[in-house]
């Protein structure tokens, strides 16, 4: 009863806010000379304040593309975007303080944020505006109903706009690099089974493959629970069930929480054995990405194998020739790797707040970014700077200048944010950048044939579900993260297992899985 009242109160307040907001907006619009079609969007210049995340090297106001937008549209943007870590900390404070920007660009809003701040009126429902002022986005929605389904909240409103690059690059995030120069030196072939791999790691450890007379080799290094550097796929090779950073997989339309399955226990027991044999870097659970990436570039080569999004970023251009990707290892369930729950869609690229006096103009402004050619520039930099037309009219990346690094250049010239590049756009409008094309190829050839068939989709939860999930996850995450690392390093999984499972049950793990299953079922029904 109390809850119903609260919801009713929130709704009535949000309605009131919505009304006053739109009348303000109309006044503002009249002043600025808003045009429903064509450029500029407003005849009188207006200024909007955006906040959100940005790449660490990005200087948004100085970007060629951003300057071009202002010239075309007469809409000036005050960018308050911050690097991801700093912004994530500030985001909740911004939302809670009520000192709102006009819009969130690269919003990083969680589903829970979208539901909370959407239903309480902080974020403005956008579906009406989309219908009237967003032809590009509507075209995308017609081609991909699934994308529209993904952004539509449980209450039927759209509070935040999507971004998408349909390349499936994140399907298997854990790329396993192994030192082939060492394998060759030790007379070993590329490991095919988990036993081969164990033998190779042991040889790395004991036979001094880098030849400096010291046992300083690190047979296997990784970062526990890091989105692209975890050993979840080794769980699959050891016990037949992959793990991932969510500890959540889907098989035959059933959601499985991996961290309470017997397979998970067995894999951890074996990993502890590997750890005690000195095959696993003791810093695997304490290092951060910077320390990890530095390990590949020490003066003498020490890394035997490691997990990361790509080979070169860890060991650098000079050493990359010594390493190659290792395919899935044969284990009890054959060759198997996990399929991550990362999807090519995200639904938090852009959101308009109630503080915005020009919602129509803002919607027209952001809709320009969903034009396929503009989307390509949002993601890879302006034409003439990051992209150029090849002979067939396809946009390709401009060649790198000497000493330039593709990733860093992209950070400096591409604002990122709301944009959609569909699978077919990668054929007709923009070629995937060489790194992405290479990764797509590696995935197709090495990993995807052996990947789990299903993964968890971008499902929307109701507010009650989110509240309950938030409560359960606070405890569950604390227990699981701690135990996973502690068991691998210090052992004891067999002894502690029953107590651990009952602690998780007490924390509500069954409810959590139930909620995920319900949302999964709803999503499946909606996308049919």
């Amino acid at each position, binding site marked *: 009863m*109390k809850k119903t*009242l*609260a919801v009713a*109160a*929130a709704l009535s*307040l*949000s309605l009131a806010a919505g009304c006053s907001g739109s009348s303000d907006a109309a006044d503002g619009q009249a002043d600025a000379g808003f045009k429903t079609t064509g450029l500029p969007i407003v005849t009188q210049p207006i200024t909007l304040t955006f906040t959100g995340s940005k790449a660490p090297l990005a200087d948004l106001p100085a970007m060629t593309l951003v300057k071009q937008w202002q010239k075309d549209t007469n809409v000036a943007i005050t960018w308050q975007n911050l690097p991801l870590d700093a912004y*994530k*900390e500030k985001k*909740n404070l911004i*939302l*809670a*303080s*009520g000192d709102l920007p006009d819009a969130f660009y690269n919003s990083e809003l*969680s589903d*829970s*944020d979208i539901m*909370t*701040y959407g239903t*309480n*009126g*902080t974020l403005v429902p956008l579906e009406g505006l989309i219908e009237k002022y967003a032809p590009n986005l509507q075209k995308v929605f017609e081609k991909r109903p699934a994308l529209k389904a993904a952004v539509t909240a449980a209450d039927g409103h759209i509070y935040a706009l999507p971004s998408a690059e349909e390349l499936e690059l994140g399907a298997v995030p854990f790329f396993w690099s192994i030192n082939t120069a060492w394998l060759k030196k030790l007379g070993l072939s590329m490991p095919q089974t988990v036993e081969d791999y164990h033998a190779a790691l042991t040889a790395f450890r004991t036979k001094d493959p880098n030849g400096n007379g010291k046992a*300083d080799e*690190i047979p296997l290094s990784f970062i*526990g*629970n890091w989105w692209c550097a975890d050993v979840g796929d080794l769980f699959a090779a050891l016990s037949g069930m992959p793990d991932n950073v969510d500890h959540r997989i889907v098989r035959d339309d059933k959601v499985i929480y991996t961290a309470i399955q017997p397979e998970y226990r067995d894999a951890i027991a074996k990993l502890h054995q590997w750890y005690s044999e000195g095959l696993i870097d*003791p*810093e695997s*659970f*304490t290092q951060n990405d910077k*320390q990890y990436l530095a390990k590949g570039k020490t003066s003498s080569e020490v890394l035997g194998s490691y997990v990361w999004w790509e080979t070169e970023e860890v060991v650098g251009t000079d050493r990359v020739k010594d390493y190659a990707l290792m395919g899935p290892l044969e284990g009890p369930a054959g060759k198997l790797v996990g399929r991550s729950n990362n999807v090519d869609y995200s639904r938090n690229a852009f959101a308009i707040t109630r503080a915005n006096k020009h919602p129509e103009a803002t919607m027209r402004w952001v809709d320009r970014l969903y034009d396929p050619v503009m989307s390509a520039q949002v993601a890879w930099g302006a034409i003439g700077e990051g992209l150029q037309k090849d002979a067939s009219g396809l946009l390709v990346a401009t060649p790198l200048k000497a000493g330039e690094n593709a990733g860093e250049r992209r950070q400096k010239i591409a604002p990122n944010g709301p944009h959609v590049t569909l699978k077919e756009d990668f054929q007709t409008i923009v070629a995937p950048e060489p790194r992405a094309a290479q990764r797509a190829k590696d995935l197709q050839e090495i990993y995807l044939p052996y990947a789990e068939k299903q993964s968890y989709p971008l499902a929307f939860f109701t507010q009650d579900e989110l509240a309950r999930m*938030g*409560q359960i*996850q*606070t*405890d569950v995450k*604390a*227990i699981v*993260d*701690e135990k*996973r*690392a*502690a068991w691998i*390093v210090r052992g004891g999984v067999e002894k502690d297992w029953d107590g651990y499972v009952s*602690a998780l049950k*007490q*924390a509500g793990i069954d409810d959590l899985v139930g909620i995920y299953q319900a949302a999964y079922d709803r999503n499946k029904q909606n996308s049919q």
Partner: protein
Amino acid sequence: MTTLTLRRPKPEAPDARPRHPQPTPGPSLAKRMALRWQLYVLIAPALLYIVVFKFWPMYGVQIAFRNFNPFDGFGGSPWAGLQHFQRFFGSAQFATLLENTIGLAVTNLVVAFPVPIILALMLNQLPAGRLRSVVQGILYSPTFISTVVVVGMLYLLLSPRTGMVNNAIDLLGGERILFMGSPEWFRPVFVGTTVWQESGFQMVIYLAALASIDPALHDAARVDGANTWQRLRHVDLPGIAPTIAVLFLLAVGNLMNVSFEKALLMQTPLNLESSQIIQTYVYQAGLQQAQFSYSAAIGLFNSLLNLVLLLTFARLVSRLQGGADQ
């Protein structure tokens, strides 16, 4: 003469302080205030500061008893009663959090508190001069290094493969230790760095107190044949006892606020067992997962705990002092 500027006011002669002041009928409060208005003007800025920055924000504490929702604000969010407290007390984390927080706080207090006193007593034995100011400078300088830098240095120095400490252990034939990944090493490393970082500052305060001890007392003790140790024990220590009591109460007042950022920075999944304390949990549940009301409730519980401890210790200290006076 040292370079110290902090001085404790000379204690009044014991008989100048009546034990039980007699209530004398005098002018009313308002009259007395009007008479001494200058004093109230002097105290006003400090009072204003405390009201604005310490008391007014307490208005927000009520969200611990509500389901806070920014749109409805502090006063408008629906009541939740003690729901958030119940959730915290019933949580699987509760016992561990409480144990870790109190354990860390008490260890920190017990180990770190006496060190500056000992340092000050030792340094005080050195004749004033170059050596003494150099030593004092060296001990004092870590105060100026920020916690983030200290913890960064820790990771480097204690790294199991390349860290100086582990290299030294290895050289001496010991087993390399995964310091940042062992729950049993979290507290020693935490407290050790606190001592290193903060002792110098406290030491200076004690040195100031030592400097204000009447040299005549020392001379008298010497004449009576007291050796250095006896003079330390019977002249220096009682001389700085009031300072110790004050600093101890201040330390107890901050007992449960052990350096939050340091605990957070030193936290790894491997030492969570001992490094997860109430403040880091509040940060993770509250700021990172946006459960404002829940974390406010935990924070309030933490403060209440601290208040209870403070009152207990304050009584203890006053009783000890009372005992010493008699």
